[in-house]
């Protein structure tokens, strides 16, 4: 599985201006630049501060419930008859997904800024719930922007956010999904920048967000690396994670970047099939452009207009991707593949039946790729798949596809 075509890559990115090669950067209106400067200055100072790190680690241990287990999926491994499959159980975190690692970190930053109002965008609602959760705990006002279409298909998470005291704003502009929610959150931030902290949910957006979200999510990869060495005596041969914006994937991948023999697979949402154009797979079928504060691979038409995406999973239904993934693709360190709606749904059922673990539909894309990859590998080889979130929120979607009213 070694990647011989690249010797060593720079793991100290982004540069001071937030660039990963040609990707990343800071493409926002002037109103927001001073706030980003302030956040960057604060973060670069705190990221190596032992007190800040200790506070973060303490919250992850006692509030989130970390470390999350690295679980050997024995029955599924036997069924697939190839590499040994280990699942990094981010679904067992408080609130049920990896998202909370980041919101805990950013809420700590918000505390240092003294800002009492928090905004967030959300797709599937997992980041919205994770943000509402930390705001409830810290007594901060919380406003979550969510596309009107996602409000419909993720009703349970909308209600969870309301119970947690957050205000959920249904966004009806554009395609009424995650990208439009992000537009609206950026408009709110420009208006209320003096008293508002924007907790971005994925490793994308203007610098320093791609860096700080990655850093907070790297706890996934650091734990997984350590656990794998402890439990198996060696490093994994391959990592697999789903990629929408890509925060769970970059959190798993980044601590392994210098381990040259560890292959990395990011799994995008293939929707009805990449060849149909109805998907959310910019790394498979997009080109570099500028949206939401960063340069990255995007799904756009020949005039540079962002096009509507399609995925059965709300959390992957986004036309862009975090800039570090764009860079990892271009330098060849990670490979990005696509899994269609049907394949993801099949993996959702399979993992539920064979391992008793009900994954999120987002995560199911990664699991579906594991089903393809594992049989091509030897039984002494190891795959770690990030089980990024649990599937309770998706039960209504799956039931509806089955024609069942719950």
């Amino acid at each position, binding site marked *: 599985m070694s990647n011989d075509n690249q010797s060593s890559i720079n793991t100290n990115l982004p540069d001071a201006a937030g660039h990963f090669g040609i990707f990343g950067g800071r493409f926002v209106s002037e109103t927001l630049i001073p706030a980003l400067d302030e956040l960057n200055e604060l973060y670069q100072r705190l990221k190596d501060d032992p007190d800040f790190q200790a506070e973060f680690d303490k919250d992850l241990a006692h509030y989130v419930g970390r470390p999350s287990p690295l679980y050997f999926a024995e029955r599924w491994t036997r069924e697939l008859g190839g590499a040994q499959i280990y699942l990094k159980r981010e679904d067992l975190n408080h609130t049920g997904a990896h998202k909370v690692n980041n919101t805990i970190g950013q809420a700590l930053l918000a505390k240092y800024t003294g800002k009492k109002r928090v905004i967030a965008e959300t797709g599937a609602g997992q980041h919205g719930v994770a943000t509402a959760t930390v705001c409830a705990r810290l007594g901060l006002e919380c406003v979550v922007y969510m596309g009107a279409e996602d409000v419909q298909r993720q009703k349970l998470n909308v209600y969870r956010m309301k119970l947690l005291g957050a205000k959920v704003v249904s966004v009806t502009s554009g395609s009424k999904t995650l990208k439009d929610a992000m*537009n609206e959150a950026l*408009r709110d931030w420009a208006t209320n920048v003096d008293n508002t902290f924007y907790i971005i949910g994925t490793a994308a957006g203007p610098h320093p967000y791609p860096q700080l979200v990655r850093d907070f999510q790297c706890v996934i990869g650091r734990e997984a690396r350590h656990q794998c060495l402890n439990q198996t005596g060696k490093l994994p041969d391959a990592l697999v994670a789903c990629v929408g914006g890509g925060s769970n994937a970059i959190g798993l991948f980044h601590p392994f970047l210098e381990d040259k023999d560890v292959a990395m697979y990011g799994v995008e949402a293939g929707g009805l099939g990449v060849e149909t154009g109805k998907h959310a797979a910019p790394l498979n079928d997009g080109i570099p452009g500028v949206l939401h504060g960063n340069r990255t691979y995007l799904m756009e038409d020949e*005039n*540079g*207009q962002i096009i509507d995406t399609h995925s059965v999973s709300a959390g992957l239904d986004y036309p862009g991707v975090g800039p570090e993934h764009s860079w990892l693709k271009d330098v060849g360190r990670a490979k990005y593949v696509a899994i269609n709606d049907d394949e993801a749904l099949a993996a959702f059922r399979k993992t539920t039946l064979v391992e008793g673990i009900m994954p999120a539909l987002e995560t199911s894309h990664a699991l579906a790729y594991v089903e393809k990859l594992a049989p091509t590998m030897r039984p002494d080889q190891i795959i770690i798949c990030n089980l990024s979130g649990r599937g309770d929120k998706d039960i209504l979607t799956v039931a509806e596809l089955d024609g069942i009213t719950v």
Partner: protein
Amino acid sequence: MNRINECLQQFKSQGRKALVGYIVSGDPFLDATLPAMHKLVAEGVDIIELGIPFSDPMADGPVIQLAHERALANNVSLTDTLAVVTEFRKTNSYTPVILMGYANPVERMGYKAFASLAKNSGIDGILTVDLPPEEALGLNVELKSVGIENIFLLAPSTTIERANMIVNMAGGFLYYVSLNGVTGAGNLDIDSVAAKVTELRGLTDLPICVGFGIKDAESAAAVGNLADGVVIGSVLVKQAQLLAELGTDAVVEGMGGVVKPIRAALDALV
């Protein structure tokens, strides 16, 4: 000399205030844009700011968001926008035209191709909302080589250090965003605009135009007292929204009707 500099210098020497009018290309119909541009000029707009339709207008309020959606429903692109300006130049060689928009359509066309096509169409400047000076170096090189000005925004939150850096890169005029927020917002604070404009005057001789939140003769006069020019946008675009059903002539007349009292208020300042 670039038409923008010529226009603003002349106004300064006459002690008059420039009126900058923003509409979105192709809103509400592609064939409404050319007559609307001529009408704006006839009623007293001095500089035309032509919006390039974009799918994700992040810095715009609801009125201009809908204008972008209408224009995109008509499939209007950056290429169409440049073609409208080419037509406009056939009968108007003096009014400065600035494109205003977001980076991605320009990125997609390519900086070099864009600069050359824009020059040939008779464009004088461009303002790219999400391309701050730090990210604009590549585009700047191409614009400079054809003599198109890159107009930059300054905001209430811009520090004096940043303002210094921006004025050194800026051309044409400085566009001061009067408030924290999106286009068409209602929280204009004249005292804070006055303080910031005074601060900027200490840094540069570039003319200063102020936009965002100016919606009538009264607010235009208040801002005109402080700045070299006043930008109106949402209040014009709103006419396209209200009158689209009645057709192009009604929209064009409606926009002209908005300009008239604002022009009169600015002229009364002299």
